[in-house]
């Protein structure tokens, strides 16, 4: 079977986002960028399914600027087979991303779309669900374990009260949560091998184009700063302050 793994290039997880002084957005100029951590977990899971002999081919797709090739290259070094970059300097909304990915899915006909549950920039947590709805394929979000047997995926999901297990008829869309796996570091030979793998550079028009924007960003502001308080010298002082000063116990 074929797996499609959409990946996003975002501000590196370890870099603190800073708001631009004109409040037009977050400053990304000259910042370290990397693959969204949840996408990395999804790619790792796809590679493990290939290693188990469940999947034959892993196609990685990214929508973004030309530099998103590096993100695809990272996934190829982890073990994916080929990449598609839908090159755009626009920052498409989740709905538009879902529509482009739907067009890719119809062209590639994967049995499984494995992707991150959310990107850590917009924190929308929406594309997987929308893609599943647009394709009318079943979905399992927030996956913490995945087994594929024949045309059925058994997925355990992290939900508010604990865990929920579902069975989905393939093809399906599955979004990865943190504890699905721990992604590997690509080895040097695999990084070299990845340089020879194909990345097709496409345009949004190859997949139906971008619709008009539904949302406009009015401003992006710093959150109100929380000011640190005092250090206390003992547990007894702490309890007495919580009781008399803060009144919370």
């Amino acid at each position, binding site marked *: 079977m074929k797996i499609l793994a959409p990946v996003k290039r975002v501000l590196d997880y370890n870099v603190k*986002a800073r*708001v631009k002084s004109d409040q037009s957005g*977050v400053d990304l100029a000259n910042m370290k960028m990397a693959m969204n951590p949840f996408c990395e977990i999804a790619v790792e899971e796809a590679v493990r399914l290939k290693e188990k002999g469940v999947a034959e081919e892993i196609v990685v797709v990214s929508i973004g600027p030309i530099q998103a090739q590096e993100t695809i290259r990272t996934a190829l070094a982890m073990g994916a087979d080929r990449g598609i970059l839908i090159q755009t300097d626009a920052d498409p909304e*989740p*709905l538009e991303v879902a529509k482009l990915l739907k067009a890719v899915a119809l062209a590639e006909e994967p049995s499984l779309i494995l992707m991150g549950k*959310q990107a*850590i*920039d917009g*924190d*929308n*947590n*929406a594309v997987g*669900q*929308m*893609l*599943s*709805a647009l394709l009318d394929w*079943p*979905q399992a*979000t927030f996956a*913490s374990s995945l087994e594929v047997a024949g045309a059925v995926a058994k997925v355990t999901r*992290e*939900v*508010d*009260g*604990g*865990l*929920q*297990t*579902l069975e989905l*008829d393939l093809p399906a869309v599955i979004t990865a949560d*943190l*504890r699905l796996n721990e992604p590997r570091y690509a080895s040097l030979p695999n990084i070299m091998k990845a340089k020879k793998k194909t990345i097709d550079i496409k345009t949004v028009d190859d997949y139906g184009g971008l619709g008009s924007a*539904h*949302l*406009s*960003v*009015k*401003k*992006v*502001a*710093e*959150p109100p700063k*929380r000011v*640190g*308080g*005092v*250090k*206390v010298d*003992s*547990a*007894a002082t*702490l*309890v*007495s*302050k*919580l*009781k008399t000063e*803060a009144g*919370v116990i």
Partner: protein
Amino acid sequence: MAVLVFADHDNLTLKDNTHKTVTAALALSGDVDILVAGQGVSGVAAEAAKIAGVRKVLTAESEALGRQIAEAVAAAVTPLMADYDALLVPATSVGKNFAPRVAALLDVAPISEIIEVVDAQTFTRPIYAGNALETVVSSDPKKVITVRATAFKAAGEGGSAAITAVDPGPGAPKTRFVSDELVKSDRPELAGAKIVVSGGRALGSAEEFQRVIEPLADKLGAAVGASRAAVDAGYAPNDYQVGQTGKVVAPQLYVAIGISGAIQHLAGMKDSKVIVAVNKDGDAPIFQVADYGLVADYKTAIPELMAALETVKA
């Protein structure tokens, strides 16, 4: 305009997230209805009907809705949106799971985890783990919005809305429920608790987490939380996780034990009224947001804290 609020419940009781989402809905319109989708939900619907300011309560019942399967919920909700201008859903794991599907089926852009209603088209939401707040204007004729409930006050009681059953929709033919593994606890629920005690990686093991964090939580009548590091290491179950990708809490008192305070954790608790941090590293970032910091090893500090609490409670 009319707004539909999706009720948060477990088929037995209505959750407070619903009351908070009603407050957000009333900021948009005076015409607010509630949908209770589930199975055997007459008790939940009766509770929802009592929320002040609610016009009517709709119920949709089927087995798949009882399991809150996203495909089934979206299929039940989407046709109802013919009569509404906005859908407001608490940003729980159920809400986040189905709301974007409704948006896709209506061809509108979902707006995730709003913390403020600026006006009927304009909403503020955190991005980058809460390190920035984005204010967006939606030009869509219908809005699909998930609501971070901790940012809104709960609507009061005193209403007496009529209850009507609606079509539960086709279910989820390609998805089957297998099992639930829900953590049972007598403690308050993490998302709505007045006091939260959270443990971090410093605890070192699941046994130590239970030995130290749980008695302190019980002494305070608190819910138990954990940092991602503690959950990843297996010290605490996944549903304890507080942070960017776990639960967002805003209790009266948040007590962080052995938590360094990564930005992803702070994103989940920095709106708490009072934050207490106990950490042996005086330079830990958690102290930058804590109202009261105690630089000490939890091994000595927690027994002292328990003893001091005993004295004030007596």
